[in-house]
Structures are given as structure tokens and as C-alpha cells.
């Protein structure tokens, strides 16, 4: 396969994953604003930070208002992280790698782009927001379904999967990075209303709310949430799950190409940090530092994969 094509597939999957993640964050923020009068500005600031575009937002808007935040996150063409921009880049990458995709996958991406482009043509009224957000997630699910159901399990599939898992791990880590402080043990009695709001926000941002409650049966503690999102390999957005999958996909590439490359070692090292630890252990040695380092190492893995498989010249 061409290095350029591998890169295109990797980024196609990253962008698709990213659009879905952004939509989920907006959804969590929106719900928060609806249910808690007190949330407001801080919550949107933290959503913007998680997506990585708070500074860009501030450069354009003086205050953080829900409408302009939602608009900036969903449809601002000047914001490279907006759902609009990200979907456009996903579609460009799909066009560039058209020969590696099945007709089903290409049409799912192309359809998704056409539907969203139309929906995001005008500012989204509050009443339409739930519909728009669920459409973003649906389109992404359609692409994933087409990928799963129609693609050969070869290097093409591996590069797509590596892209989406690296992006997803990054996203979950960013949610934790922005909110790590509410997960730290404090002197305050557990279950104060503010904490509850924040915990709910974290779980919603990772689509983890109902599965968490189902597994923990009412036992909502910050430690359990942190454990769930970092170490629980059953949870498809946890760091452990992502790295299980990454190790798998890299191994499959190794078998197909008959060699191992530096990225394989790097991924194994990162995975070891997740499997050899307990949550107490991580919190004791510094939750925030742990997350920070993880984000850096995850990004380093991404660029090692780029180098190892010659995405660029």
C-alpha cells in the first residue's frame, strides 16, 4: 500500500472519531446547561478546552455564551476543530484514499458529509440541536458499520483502526485532563451536588454513563469513574481498551509485513503503564501527571506510526 494511502486512512479515521467526540462533548455541555442553571460559562469553557480550541474561541468572541460556543464547535469554518471542518477533512481524506475503501464505506462518508453540510448550513436553533448532534453520531456509526462489515481485514483496516483508537484515547485522556481535579479525593463529603454534576459530565462526555451505573450499581465514587475510564478494558472508550486494540492492530501489521517497527515497542511500553497499575497506585503517584504523560506518549506513538509506515516523504 502507498504510504500516502496509509496516512489518508489513518487520518480519515481520526477525523471521523473526532467529529463524534466533539458532538458528544457538545451534547454533554448542552445537557448540563439545561439541567443545571449554575453550570453555564465554566462548562462551555471546559468543553472548548477539551476540544482544544479555547484560545481560538477567545480570539473571536469576547464572552463565552452557549450559542456562540455551540456554533463555534459545530459549524465555524474558521475553526479547524469544528464538526464541519473535521467532517470536511474526513471526506477529503476519503476522496484521497478512495481506492482503498469499499463503495459502502465511501458512500457512508460522502453521505455523512452531504447530510451534515446541509444541516450546518445555517446556525442550529436550540430546538434542532439534539437532532443535529444525534445525526453526527449516527453518521459516524454508519461509517464504522460499513468499515466493520465490508472491509478486508488487511493493512487498510489496521491503519484505520490505529487512527481511530489513537484519536479516541487522546479524547478520553483530554476529558480527564480537564476534569482531573473533580476526581481527586478531597476532604469534602462525597456526593456533594457540584461533584455529582461534574461526574455526570465526565461520564456523558465518554458515553459511559449508563454502562458505568450498570456496572457499579449506584456506587458512584470519583475513584471508580477514573478506574472505569482509564483501566477498564471492557469499556470501549477507556485508555486500556484503546491500547488493547492498538497492540492488536500493530501486531497484525507486523504479521502482514513480516517485521516489527519502533512504534510496536512504543505502544507496548504505553500499554504496560496501563496494565501493570491499580487506580490507587495511579492516584497516589499523581493522576494529573499520569494523564499529561499519557497524552504526550500517545501523540508520540502517532508520529512514530507516521514515520514507520512512510505516511509522508
Amino acid at each position, binding site marked *: *500500500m*502507498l504510504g*500516502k494511502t496509509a496516512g489518508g486512512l489513518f487520518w480519515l479515521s481520526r477525523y471521523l472519531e473526532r467529529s463524534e467526540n466533539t458532538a458528544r462533548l457538545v451534547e454533554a455541555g448542552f445537557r448540563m446547561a439545561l439541567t443545571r442553571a449554575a453550570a453555564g460559562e465554566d462548562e462551555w469553557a471546559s468543553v472548548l478546552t477539551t476540544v482544544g480550541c479555547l484560545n481560538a474561541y477567545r480570539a473571536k468572541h469576547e464572552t463565552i455564551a452557549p450559542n456562540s460556543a455551540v456554533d463555534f464547535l459545530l459549524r465555524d469554518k474558521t475553526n479547524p476543530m469544528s464538526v464541519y471542518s473535521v467532517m470536511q477533512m474526513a471526506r477529503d481524506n476519503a*476522496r484521497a484514499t*478512495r*481506492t482503498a475503501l469499499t463503495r459502502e464505506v465511501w*458512500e457512508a462518508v460522502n453521505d455523512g458529509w*452531504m447530510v451534515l453540510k446541509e444541516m450546518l448550513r445555517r446556525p442550529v436553533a436550540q430546538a434542532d440541536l439534539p437532532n443535529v448532534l444525534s445525526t453526527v453520531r449516527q453518521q459516524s456509526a454508519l461509517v464504522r458499520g460499513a468499515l466493520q462489515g465490508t472491509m478486508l481485514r488487511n493493512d487498510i483496516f489496521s491503519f484505520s483502526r490505529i487512527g481511530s483508537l489513537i484519536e479516541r484515547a487522546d479524547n478520553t485522556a483530554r476529558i480527564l485532563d480537564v476534569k482531573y481535579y473533580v476526581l481527586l479525593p478531597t476532604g469534602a463529603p462525597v456526593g456533594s451536588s457540584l461533584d455529582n454534576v461534574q461526574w455526570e459530565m465526565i461520564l456523558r462526555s465518554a458515553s459511559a454513563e449508563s454502562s458505568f451505573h450498570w456496572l457499579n450499581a449506584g456506587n458512584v465514587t470519583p475513584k471508580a469513574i477514573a478506574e472505569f475510564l482509564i483501566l477498564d478494558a471492557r469499556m470501549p472508550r477507556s485508555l486500556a481498551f484503546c491500547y488493547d486494540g492498538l497492540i492488536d492492530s500493530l501486531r497484525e501489521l507486523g504479521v502482514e509485513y513480516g517485521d516489527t517497527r519502533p512504534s510496536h515497542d512504543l505502544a507496548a511500553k504505553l500499554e504496560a503503564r496501563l496494565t501493570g497499575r491499580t487506580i490507587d497506585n495511579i492516584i497516589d503517584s499523581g493522576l494529573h501527571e499520569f494523564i499529561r504523560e499519557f497524552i504526550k506518549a500517545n501523540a508520540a506513538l502517532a508520529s512514530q506510526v507516521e514515520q514507520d509506515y*512512510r505516511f509522508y516523504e
Partner: protein
Amino acid sequence: MGGSTVFFDEMRGPDESARQPYAEYCAWLESVKINELHKKSREAETFFRRTGITFNVYGEKDADERLIPFDLVPRIIDGKEWRLLVRGIEQRVKAINAFLHDIYHRQEILRAGRIPEHLIANNEAFLPEMIGVTPPGGVYTHIVGVDLVRTGANEFYVLEDNARTPSGVSYMLENRETMLKMFPELFSQIKVQPISNYPTLLRRSLGKCAPVRSEGRPTVAVLTPGLHNSAYFEHAFLADQMGAELVEGHDLRVVDGRVAMRTTQGYQPVDVLYRRIDDEYIDPLNFNRSSMLGVPGIMDVYRSGGITLANAPGTGIADDKAIYSYMPDIVEFYTGQTAILKNVPTYRCSEADSLKYVLENLHELVVKEVHGSGGYGMLVGPAASKRELAAFRAKLIAKPSNYIAQPTLALSTVPVLTRSGLAPRHVDLRPYVLVSPDNIDITPGGLTRVAMKQGSLVVNSSQGGGTKDTWVLEE
């Protein structure tokens, strides 16, 4: 063109009865409501958008991709008519390849005085780098698109030979796919010759032209200028259908005397490159130095027999519009036979008598740039305003050798679906020809282009033309 001209309609005769090839189709048509057709037409458009069958128009601000209008009334040719065309096209394509070999080697045709020497020597399309070079398998034009027009029941003319990189074949294939989806019942009633194996034949035909040095199954790649090229969809489509890699210039480099592509597992040699980039841009070391699209040094590899380029560089000398007028001589010189397909009478403006005639009759003629394509830089006399005529007159006088002129042909019509029902529009036809060392394959039918505007004779997609599915009936 005056209102008195009667155009040949391919569907119905002067008495409104269906011509024989259309008999079954017209019977079906009578059973269908026009609303139903409109609905199908909208469905077809959605299908094209979803599939991404789009093109980019140069020079438009809104760089959005556009659809080429698709008309769902098929253009039907019967088997016998088609057999005649096939013979004519084969003859012509053989002659073109023989001409190219000759012109880059012994130049017998010039020595015989059948073509004036200055026409070759001073021609920008003649590539001195190709002198003495024989392409692998001796094939110059692996893919040819011969543009035909029809003016009567048995009257076909070749409008031009596209011997460089003819485009549009993806529309031919997708038009058929769309028709099969929209009107399955028609295809079970009417036996239409299939075309869907074109990509397989293309792959095979290119493979047969691989350099001698290549081992095993030849590696074929399609070279595209990139995402923003107007025909990017087609490049991706063909690569996909052939199972070939779609590469850009920066994916390729010369490694150990071969052209190799950067893969996830290092550089791997390419045997056959189906390049959709003009000669000028293909090698910044040998041609246009500022080209970002090509591969530095690829011409040197080519000349040493390390790679096959399809089509070969320098084939433009065969489809040059100034050479066109000599095609009947060329066919006769190399095949020893009279040309089966007619040429449109052509005035070479480089000749004083012709120029005089052209200037006097500009309002009745079609004038084309010798090196132009895509319907750009062309004058359709009968449709031009006084001001346009005057402007063109000035251009002609300034550089006569840059132009040829032809009488305005009474192009045949086929109905298209309009808001108010079916209405005749002018069409042309581009059959696609695959050439390998031992075989010439012509896909039954080709791309029918149709001028969507009433009375218009310009069918180019860049000028708002549309396309139709083309049916060749089984005999």
C-alpha cells in the same frame, strides 16, 4: 444556422415513427408517464452525488464539485451500424500508431511528401525526446478516444482523435450502472451489449505493454495530478476498478534505474504508469522545470526501457488539429486502404487561400485552436455575436497557423428529458479504444455527450454539456 436545416434525429424519422434501433424503446416509452421519468431523473442525480461522480470546473470561484448533467434517454446504435464504426476505428487507430512510430523514427511519410515537413518540425506537440525511442510492445496510444459525430443514417465523421489522455470513460461506465438501477425492466427486454469489463480489459491491455524488464505480474499505477484536478473522480475510479495504486508525483521517485512508489514497506517499482498528466508536466528534469506534478528523471527511465508510460509521451503529434486534416492520407499511407471513417473537411488557416475563405465565411464556420481542447478557445460561427466574430477575426489574422476551421456540421439529435417533455438535442460520441501489442479492443458504445441547451452544438462538459448512456444492441 438557418431554421431551414433539418437535423437527423436518431430516435424518430421525419414522419415521427421510431427508427428501427429505437423501436422497442419507444414502445416502452409510450407506457411510461412523464412524471415517472422526472422522478427517475431526480433519483439518478441523487445516485451520482452519493457516489461522488463529480468534476471540478477550472476557474470557478466556488470550488465545489459539480455533477455532469445526466440524461436518462439512452442513445441507441444497432449492431450493424456499430460493426461499421468498429472497422473504421480500428483502421484509424492502427494508422495512428504506425504514424507515431514512423514520425519518431524514419519519417517515411515526410520523405514521401504526404505531409509537409514544417508541420512536424515546428509543432509543439512533436517531442524530440521521443526520437528513436520505441515504447514497450511498440504501442504508443494505449487508450484512444475517437470523437464521432453523425449527420445522417449512414453518415459518420471523425471530429477528432484523442490520442493523449482521453477522459470520460468513468461516466460511460457509471451511466450504465445508473441505467441498470433505474430501468432494470428495459434491460431484460432489450439486449444491450455489456461494457462493464472495460476496467478489466484496461488492466490486461496495460499489463501486456509492460517493459521486458519487469518480472511476474506487472505493477500498474494511475498517476493523477491530485484531488483538485477536474477528472480526479475518474482517476480514482479507474485505479479502484483495476486494482491499481492511485499515485501522485510525490509518491514516486527514481530508485536504481526504475520508477518506484513509496509504500508502507519501502519503495517498490512500477511497471506501467497510466498517467493522467500532460507530457509537459511529467518530468521536471526533462520538460517543464516548475512542474510539481511529475517525477524527476522519469523520462530517462522511460528511454532506457524501465517503465511503460500510457499513453507514450509525444502522441499529441497524432491528434493535433493541424495534422487532423491529413488523416485520410495518413490512413492510406500506413494501411494501404481508403479511410473508412470520414474526416470533416478542414481549412488550414496557415494556408493563404484557406485563410481568405475562412475570414469571408466566419459566420458559417466552426474555428478551433490547433492545440486547444475541452471546447475552450473555440468559435461556433452561426451562434456567435458580431462582437465575438470580430474578436476572433483579429485573432485569426494575428496568428493564422494557430487555427483550423470546419463547416458547421448538422449534428444528429437524440431527445433529452426537459421540464416540458422530450426534446431533441445535439449529440456526439466518444468510443474508447484499448490498444495492446496484439489486439485492439473497442468497448461497444462509448460516451455520448449531449448539448443540453436547445440548438447548441457544443457538447463539452466544461461548457455545460451532459451525457447519456449509449447502447449498442446485440445482433
